[in-house]
């Protein structure tokens, strides 16, 4: 049984239709950007190595050749500069879609993100909206060097004025990016880099009603006994775990939260009111992580029906470790199964 998040976890996309194509997440994101650039002449794609190279993950591959070097360009190596410039471009009526090359390098930009991007709309009483879609290759699982795999969602979600979303598969990546890139507010778009090369069905027409509202959470697998709540790369792992649990007769529902801010509390409550038990799974450290927020939302909405306290299976309160210890850090199949066991075996004291 593999504990590598580079493997396993097939995509649960819309039921195949005439429109369905098979794409990797990298291709799906590239296609979404291509279409956004074509549809809105005010959109701009830029960042370190985004132009000629097409980005170190090739998400912007070919876009400069197609849309020109005024709309898709390389910036100097300065994240604060990239985000600060985005603020000015947004004030000038553009829709910047900047990239920070790796999650850990969003830190040099935090000042601009928190003090400027997130507040300009408020500060200007709505006259200076910040339609900025910041793409951040996120989370671990690829044995990358230090700072090349971090889970910043709680940090971003805590900042008033930002919205945060993370796709879990190519279909989600395509649609969520297209949606985010047409919104008038700043969206932090966290791409699970360990899933970039995973292929899956993409229905560009979004024909399936199961997709729900583009701002909502999405049930990726139905179940009766408990709900696993996850986002990004952890969704695929939870689907894997649900498959294994089913062999033991445990019927797990997997909810892909998708939006980490705002959280779709209604879908969360609906799922847990049905299953009456929940485990939140995330890669970020435990303390003050988003799992606490999710658990509180569940508690508030489902206190009367819960059969056990909401459990969390997360990374630890340690700096993101080197590749050799990554599999110990990222919630693995065993640890998620233990979490499931804890809620199933919970006895009131």
């Amino acid at each position, binding site marked *: 049984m593999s504990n590598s998040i580079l493997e396993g976890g097939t995509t649960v996309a819309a039921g195949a239709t005439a429109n369905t194509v098979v794409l990797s997440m990298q291709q799906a994101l590239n296609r979404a950007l291509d279409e956004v650039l074509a549809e809105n002449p005010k959109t701009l794609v830029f960042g*370190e*190595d985004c*132009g*000629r*190279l*097409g980005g*170190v993950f090739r998400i912007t591959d070919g876009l400069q050749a197609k849309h020109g070097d005024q709309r898709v360009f*390389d910036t*100097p*190596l*300065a994240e*604060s*500069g990239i985000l600060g410039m985005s603020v000015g471009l947004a004030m000038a009526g553009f829709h910047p879609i900047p990239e920070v090359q790796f999650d*850990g*390098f969003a*830190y*040099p930009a935090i000042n601009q993100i928190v003090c400027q991007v997130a507040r300009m709309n408020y500060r200007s009483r709505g006259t200076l909206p910040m339609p900025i879609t910041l793409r951040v290759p996120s989370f671990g699982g690829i*044995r*990358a*060097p*230090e*700072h*090349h795999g971090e889970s910043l969602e709680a940090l971003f979600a805590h900042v008033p004025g930002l919205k945060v979303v993370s796709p879990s598969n190519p279909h989600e990546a395509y649609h969520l990016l297209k949606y985010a890139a047409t919104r008038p507010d700043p969206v932090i778009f966290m791409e699970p880099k360990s899933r970039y090369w995973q292929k899956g069905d993409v229905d560009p027409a979004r024909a399936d009603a199961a997709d729900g509202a583009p701002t909502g959470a999405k049930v990726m697998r139905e179940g009766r006994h408990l709900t696993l709540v996850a986002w990004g790369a952890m969704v695929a792992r939870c689907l894997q775990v649900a498959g294994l649990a089913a062999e033991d007769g445990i019927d797990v529902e997997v909810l892909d939260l998708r939006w980490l801010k705002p959280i779709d509390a209604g879908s969360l409550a609906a799922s847990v009111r049905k299953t009456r038990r929940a485990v939140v799974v995330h890669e970020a450290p*435990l*303390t003050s992580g988003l799992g606490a927020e999710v658990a509180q939302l569940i508690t508030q909405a489902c206190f009367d029906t819960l059969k056990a306290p909401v459990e969390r299976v997360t990374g*630890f*309160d*340690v*700096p993101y*470790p*080197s*590749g*050799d*210890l*990554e599999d*110990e*850090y990222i919630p*693995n199949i*065993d*640890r998620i199964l*233990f979490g499931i066991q804890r809620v199933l075996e919970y006895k009131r004291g």
Partner: protein
Amino acid sequence: MDTLPPVASGDVAAPLAPAQLRELYSLMVAVRHLDTSAIAWQRQGLIPGYAPELGQEAAQVGSGYAVDTTRDFVFPTYREMGVARTMGVDMIAYMSTHKATWHGGLYNPLESRLAPIQAVVAGSVLHAVGWAHGQTLDHKDGVALSYFGDGASSQGDVHEAMNFAAVMKAPVVFFVQNNGWAISVPTERQVAGGSVAARAAGYGMPALQIDGDDVVAVVEATRRAFAHARAGNGPVVIEAMTYRRGPHSTSDDPGRYRSLAEERDGAGADPLERFRQRLLTEGIADEAFFAEALAAAKAEEEQIRTGVQALGPRPGAEMFDLVFQETTPTLQAQAASWREESEHV
């Protein structure tokens, strides 16, 4: 460019003796061989990644050679293997970071005088200024040597570091390896104002722009800068002009941003070959010496490879043990549940 004023003559080291020139060559061969081997290790699956420095040997060996490890301190990026080797750092411990064993490497920074390997571009430039200022406060004469690239010079931290250092007259040598590229972006799209060295004037700092492929020129320039800083005259910028051949890292594909012909034209003469010709012409070394240096480099690489191969992952418990000097109850609880669930103890 050379705006560094002459220092009091007693501070300048004597010209390099023939034995030192041969030592420099041996170091460059060792670095070249280890560097190209590390790329092969990555292709063979021994290490997940590596940041090569092919073509930067003269800049690294020459500058590292000027360091006095009894009193100076060096702040590297992720590409200073040649500096580490020149300073005598344990290379198995150094390479461990590329094996994904431990961030920063397993060498002891205090003993080796080399700060942990740094992945954040410009992340350590301000640290160098702080360490250097500490020398002033402690009335010590150590100099901080800060390495970074032309790309890194775009970071705000570099501008803050230069300003701080100049205001405080901190003994820092800002050693910029301008290797022509920041991944796919060429220097002219990265650095405004002509060069990084040109910026020094704005901070009232002297600067040297040097041929970073001439190891002797690099040693001499770095020694001059050290003497200037050590004498209490404040920071210096050295911009060593060099060229990064091949990929930025083992996951990079340079064919997307330049052709092999462009690389050949831009790279100029191979610094190692150039130095070898010079030693031959000046009668300082002969073919037998070169052959011996290569043999030693090969033997050394083999010993390092064996050591790297033998490196197992660190015990998972270290993940928790090394977060704080004084751990917390929460972390202890997490460590306990980790042991239960992952090690089944």
